[in-house]
């Protein structure tokens, strides 16, 4: 087993870090296929991770390509260099990428390129859509509420096959409800008013009734608002 343990340790460097396989060859001998073929596995694995990211974030990739020449490649490569792939499902790469992208020091970690504020917000919205589509539980049952500094909904609805028509997110504070789409079996989005956000916070148990009334939301207004929103929540609130 010692030889097999060594194989995993040394081949692990090839597939995870893009090592050229010299250490593997020195320890276990050259591959009959040649060292270059062994080293190719680093590139093949890298492609899988790039594909996972780019399939998950088609709009983010497209809008960065349109408006910030080369920034997507910089962000992607900086992320891949961290070798984070924490889940057996490829979406785990993308969910972890969104967390990294939202960290305050990410701009300095990508060679001083300024990362626009809307980039992590677009990523966060894509993650919310994914979580709603797979039915991941939330305080609202399945639906989720996001708070953004930019109007990311309009951009996320863009047709990525026509890059010039992608709307750059405008600076505009917005609340977004992401909820199950019973037709496409994916997720839909809609803008929320401040009253709707407050009522959903009450529905999720994060705000009590008196606090809603202090905000000027009466019980009849609360109930009427919730009646309108309830069909979008998909399932009952998790107790």
């Amino acid at each position, binding site marked *: 087993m010692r030889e097999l343990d060594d194989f995993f340790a040394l081949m692990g460097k090839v597939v995870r870090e893009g090592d050229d396989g010299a250490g593997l060859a020195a320890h276990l001998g050259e*591959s009959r*296929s040649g060292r270059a073929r062994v080293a190719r596995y680093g590139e093949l694995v890298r492609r899988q991770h790039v594909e996972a990211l780019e399939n998950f974030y088609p709009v983010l990739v497209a809008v960065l390509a349109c408006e910030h020449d080369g920034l997507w490649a910089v962000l992607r490569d900086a992320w891949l260099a961290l070798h984070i*792939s*924490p889940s057996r499902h490829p979406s785990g790469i993308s969910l972890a990428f969104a967390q990294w992208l939202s960290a305050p020091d990410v701009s300095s970690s990508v060679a001083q390129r300024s990362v626009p504020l809307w980039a992590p917000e677009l990523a966060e919205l894509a993650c919310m859509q994914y979580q709603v589509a797979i039915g991941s539980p939330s305080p609202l049952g399945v639906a989720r509420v996001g708070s953004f500094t930019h109007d990311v909904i309009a951009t996320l609805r863009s047709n990525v096959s026509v890059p010039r028509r992608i709307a750059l997110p405008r600076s505009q504070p917005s609340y977004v409800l992401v909820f199950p789409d019973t037709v496409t079996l994916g997720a839909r989005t809609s803008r929320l008013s401040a009253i709707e956000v407050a009522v959903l916070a009450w529905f999720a148990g994060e705000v009590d009734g008196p606090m809603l009334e202090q905000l000027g939301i009466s019980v009849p207004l609360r109930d009427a608002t919730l009646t309108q929103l309830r069909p979008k929540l998909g399932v009952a609130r998790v107790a």
Partner: protein
Amino acid sequence: MSLSGVGIGLRRPHFDALADTQRQIDWLEVIAENYVGVDGSARRILDVCRERWPVAPHGVSASLGGPTPLDESWARACGALTRLLDAPFYTEHACWSALDGWYSHDLLPLPFNEAAAEHLGRRARAFAQYAERPLLLENVTYYATMPGSRWSEGQFLSHALAVADAGLLLDVNNVYVNAVNHDEDPLAVLEALPLSRVRQIHVAGHRREGDLLLDDHGSAVSAPVVALLEAAILRVGAVPVLLEWDHGVPPLDVLLDEADRLRAIVDAALSTRALATQPLIANAPHGTTRDA
């Protein structure tokens, strides 16, 4: 529930079209990682599909040949999915794909030697025990022979499957791709595999990239792979066949056209096999033919 004929993979771009189609679909294969522990839309479409067609699970992340301790809870969840689908077996790959909490999302080959075959076989047997369902292991592509290899792929898989007491999911496209990439005769490679253990077949497209054929599941099945599929059916008989198409997924009708084409080829091969194994006069009394 038994599987037969030529199935297709259940893929998101086809969710809508599947609901409406009246065309023949023999069975569906689902990627287990997309459905284990998942609710929501994916689970709903799975429920809809299993009312109309047999559905079988296929895993891509168990890393049965890898160094990371076997994930017992994952194996149990895969077994539960298999039982939910009433599928005859769970299928995975003869490879490794995880290291210290990092997932490669690629199917990585093992060195072809006794230690690796034993390791793979023992872990596959344990996985099947946790899952409480029979297991099939699929032969994977290897673009390079891994350092430390002292056996052929056929020797490696024969030993691993014997230790695991598992069946073989024969990927005919992988056989062809490996043979071409390593300058071997595809039929000889096929015949060196433990064909008596084949319980299912996969076919797919591939593409050339530089000096390699890559198993990319991105096109129709090529003529040499179809020929190898016929050869496999002649040798192993009737087993379910699965058409894989994962990149540049075509419209459902195009995919089903390809499945129809393969079904006709498989049926013809089965007829040929039946003729070749049939006695000249069935149930003839002993000596009758000689006396006639």
